[in-house]
């Protein structure tokens, strides 16, 4: 395989398994090899104590109010965006975003951003682990318990919200269980609650903690999906993870998030998968490994269907913002105005840590409307055309060193730096016609040359093709 093709393939992997990579990083990774890179992304070393908090520590040092009881929602969003941009464990962060899509929990109700950041950390810690363990953690997660009212699920007054969503949205998918199963699952989770929230006022919000209240747990016999016993919550999870519907549902989510846009989740019971064969392969890896996320992710990233799915997805707003900030190198350190980077995905229709409902976001083309499209295009253009940003400067010097001279070369290099973007012949011709207006590059005038590079990067970012990732 030619080196350029290897770089393009690596760019694809890094877009999906992370938030994009600079040319320099791509070259380093290509030198290591594709499969070795997958291995490195998926099988992360345990965190050392000093990097336990990761980029988050940097945000809290400069913005201690992130850690106030209750947190500050806009800073919570900013701190996550900052982590997406600066993480050195890209797949861990990407999986946190994946689980946030699937286990969508929102500050609109939780109204306690600290708890959502804690949930996010749980996603980081368990997101690449065993799916069963993840579900157990999720069941004990205070933000989730409050979000789906399990603190209102009592022995004598069952609240089905959590029990239902566990089955419908977090594991099996609709139509694979009965209303009785919902009821029985909910009974099994009675007593799984949070310590009473101290009245917010006058002291502000306080952290919640999981608490199992034995006296509030329904000890009666339950019949769930054909099994009968005195089930507790973990027993329900043990049954659920073994259901074939669960493997299919989770793998289809992974496919939709990492490989190619699927129809929206509510249509999954009606429409076949985009690639049944691929889904089968993922399900096998998932089940044979005993529901290890690393197994299914490795199998997926190393598969041909993944490698052949370049630009088969509309980038989510979080991906647009994080990859642009990563590329332009504008947020290597916290600085004033950091709130804005957390708000930007919301302007494009994805308010992170605040999904519209427990069903999460509609994805794919649903991300696009006239307002969000302009927000995407202008955000990317404003960054990649800003020649004062270190990432843009390094692209400019790279092009200069590579002797980029003709309009053709300028366009080619710009497409490469924007992630080896593949464009249609028409788009290429139109961009080239535009580049030709400026003639050959004049590196003698550094400012003008830099500005031309910035403009070309911005125009590449404005194409329809760049909306895909």
């Amino acid at each position: 395989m030619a080196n350029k093709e290897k770089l393009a393939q690596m760019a694809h992997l890094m877009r999906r398994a992370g938030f994009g990579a600079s040319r320099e990083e791509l070259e380093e990774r290509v030198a290591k090899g594709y499969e070795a890179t997958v291995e490195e992304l998926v099988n992360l070393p345990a965190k050392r104590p000093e990097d336990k908090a990761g980029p988050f520590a940097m945000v809290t040092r400069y913005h201690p109010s992130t850690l106030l009881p209750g947190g500050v929602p806009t800073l919570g969003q900013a701190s996550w965006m900052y982590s997406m941009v600066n993480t050195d464990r890209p797949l861990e962060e990407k999986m946190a975003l994946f689980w946030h899509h699937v286990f969508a929990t929102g500050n609109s109700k939780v109204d306690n951003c600290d708890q959502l950041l804690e949930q996010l950390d749980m996603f980081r810690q368990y997101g690449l682990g065993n799916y069963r363990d993840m579900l157990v953690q999720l069941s004990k997660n205070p933000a989730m318990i409050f979000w789906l009212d399990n603190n209102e699920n009592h022995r004598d007054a069952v609240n089905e919200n959590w029990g239902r969503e566990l089955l419908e949205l977090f594991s099996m998918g609709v139509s694979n269980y009965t209303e009785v199963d919902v009821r029985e699952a909910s009974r099994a989770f009675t007593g799984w609650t949070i310590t009473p929230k101290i009245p917010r006022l006058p002291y502000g919000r306080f952290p919640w903690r999981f608490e199992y209240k034995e006296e509030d747990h329904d000890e009666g016999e339950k019949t769930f999906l054909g099994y009968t016993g005195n089930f507790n919550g973990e027993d329900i999870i043990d049954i659920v993870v073994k259901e074939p519907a669960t493997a299919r549902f989770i793998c289809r989510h992974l496919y939709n998030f990492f490989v190619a846009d699927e129809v929206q989740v509510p249509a999954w019971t009606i429409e076949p998968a985009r690639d049944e064969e691929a889904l089968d392969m993922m399900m096998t890896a998932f089940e044979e490994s005993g529901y290890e996320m690393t197994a299914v992710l490795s199998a997926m990233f190393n598969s041909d269907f993944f490698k052949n799915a370049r630009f088969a997805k509309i980038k989510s707003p979080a991906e647009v913002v994080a990859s642009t900030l990563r590329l332009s190198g504008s947020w290597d350190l916290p600085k004033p105005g950091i709130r804005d980077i957390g708000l930007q995905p919301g302007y494009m229709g994805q308010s992170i840590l605040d999904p519209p409902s427990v069903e999460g976001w509609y994805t794919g083309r649903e991300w696009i409307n006239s307002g969000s499209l302009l927000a995407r295009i202008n955000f990317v253009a404003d960054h990649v055309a800003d020649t004062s940003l270190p990432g843009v400067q390094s692209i400019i010097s790279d092009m200069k060193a590579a002797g980029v001279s003709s309009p053709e070369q300028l366009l080619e290099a710009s497409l490469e730096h924007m992630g080896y973007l593949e464009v249609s012949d028409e788009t290429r011709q139109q961009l080239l016609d535009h580049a030709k207006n400026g003639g050959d590059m004049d590196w003698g005038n550094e400012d003008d040359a830099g500005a031309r590079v910035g403009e070309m990067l911005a125009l590449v970012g404005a194409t329809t093709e760049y909306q895909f990732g």
Partner: protein
Amino acid sequence: MTSTKKDPVIVVLQLTGGNDYFNTVIPYNEPLYYDNRPAVQYRQEDIIKVDDQLGFMPAMGPIKNLYDQGKVAVLHGIGYADSPRSHFRSMDIWHTCEPDKVGTEGWAGRLARELDPNKENVLSAINFGHGLPRALVVPGVPVAAIADLETYGVLTGISDDQQRMKALDLFARMYSPAVGSGMVTDYLRSTGMEAMTGADIVKVAPEMYSSSVEYPNSPIAAHLKDIAQVYLADLGTRIFYTQHGSFDTHAGEAGAHPTLWKDVSEGISAFFEDLHAHGTGENVIMYLFTEFGRRVHDNGSGTDHGAAGAAFAIGDAVKGGMYGQYPSAKAEDLEQGDLVPNYDFRGGYTTIIEDWFGLDAKPIVNGSFEKHSFL
């Protein structure tokens, strides 16, 4: 409707976060108001009396002036049964008119589709703010989203005029319809063209605009000024949408709530003054709503999420006055400590859609609901 009459226009102003109804239109002779609001009450002498029972909170002076001119209708007890008391879900219900299931189409988007079925004008409906509220989202219905009129457009970061013109020219070519580019790309192209066309048309608005009216310095006044400019430029926009907030006054309500209403009241007053100064505005009504009211009893510093609220219709064509009944604040009449809604929010929309726009409201609001006669 005669042909010389201008097309009816609506400005929807969403009070985001849950405005405290009990502290906005206040039953000032009701001891229960003072009993329930030890921490966040307005003093009786500061309340602007409207009749012998109800008054506006003190920052609503400019709205009271419009009320006295018969241009403000207050819709009492508006909401729906079983308020989920969640911001998002409640707002979603108001946006989609679907209290029992998750809806995907917004009522204002549907109205836009009825008003411009052939999509002749990409500016039939405009949101002023970032992104689109679900109220305006209907697949296939173009709606513009303008955060700031001055800077709205494609590739606005390019400051050199000539260079930008060339970039826009390129953009137009890249986004023009093409055969066989695939469904999603086709959709991207048409959306991009709509956005660019809209931006191109709308940019005349600030160029044409001049006014002797000074708007106050607040985000909502800035949006209303943008709306006035687009309206005055006569670009055929029928639905303007914007929001102000956050009215989510769990804490510090005594400080925040008056500021919020000061900004809203002064902004609205300047907006109508501006329209009148240009000899127009008679075909504009404004509709203010919020996702829910707040808990009757305060929490020591603010109020928590509640149920029934008030909506306001304002404009020259509005038949001013109080509509409906103020829900009882007696302890035994409350649900979970909240005022109980007694007027379905879809009735407010129905009144507007039928009596202002002259359209059938049923398919837009998903059913038949009692109207009030404020139009």
